[in-house]
């Protein structure tokens, strides 16, 4: 079977589509956990862009950035989920529209 290479644009396009799906989920969903998972999806899409440009420029720096993004995402997930636990403990709800005490 002949080896057909993949144009690099396809990777960037996939990354843009994943990022926009994550942004849409961030906006249209009400569940706080699903909103948080949409943020993780956007971070993953950005990681794909970093690795793709690293391939384009034949350098390893993009991999390092992507690695740092992963580490920061892990820290953010730990703190964010602790915040979600606290919100649920105090208000017994997971709907973001109900957590509006800073409105007005």
């Amino acid at each position, binding site marked *: 079977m002949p080896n057909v290479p993949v144009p690099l*644009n396809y*990777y960037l396009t996939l990354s*843009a589509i994943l990022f*926009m*799906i994550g942004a849409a989920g961030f906006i249209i*969903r009400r569940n706080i956990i699903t909103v948080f998972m949409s943020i993780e999806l956007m971070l993953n899409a950005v990681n*794909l862009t970093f690795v793709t440009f690293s391939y384009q420029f034949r350098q*390893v720096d993009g991999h390092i950035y992507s690695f740092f993004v992963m580490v920061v995402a*892990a820290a953010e997930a*730990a703190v964010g989920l602790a915040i979600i636990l606290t919100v649920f403990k105090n208000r017994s709800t997971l709907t973001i529209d109900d957590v509006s005490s800073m409105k007005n």
Partner: protein
Amino acid sequence: MDLILFIVFAMFAVASALGLILQTHPINSALSLIGVMGSLAVLYLLLGAEFIAAAQLVVYAGAIMVLFLFVIMLLNAGEERNPWKAPVVAYIGGPVVIFLIGAFVYLINFTLPPMRSVSFGDFTGGGPREIGMAIFTKYLLPFEVTSVLILIAIVGAMVLARKEID
């Protein structure tokens, strides 16, 4: 062969991402997100990023998603009764999202200068050896700052999630 692999896993990633935002049960959403991360790990391998692919599976699909599933089960989050925002968001937001995707696709495919084509095994600079060399020489200071950040995150998570002592 590379193109077939890319298309299969790209379709799987997009389908899983759509499943993430369209399913109403948080457990189903979390499993869809694991699907996205797994297929992205395969795409990283195609790009020659072996270390990042392994870290993606271990850190993201392993650690972070287990944390998510743990919290979902701890909170006993079931099927949502009213998962969507007001319909005006869907009517305005849907076309906006589609327009933005179209704009990105146009910008990426028609305005960027010509780029390389990816074939597996062409770029071998993403193994653990090269990553280690870069992290411990050029990026040593960010690496150390990251460890401080993780320490702060651990302390913060413990302070936030501890039991209130009355």
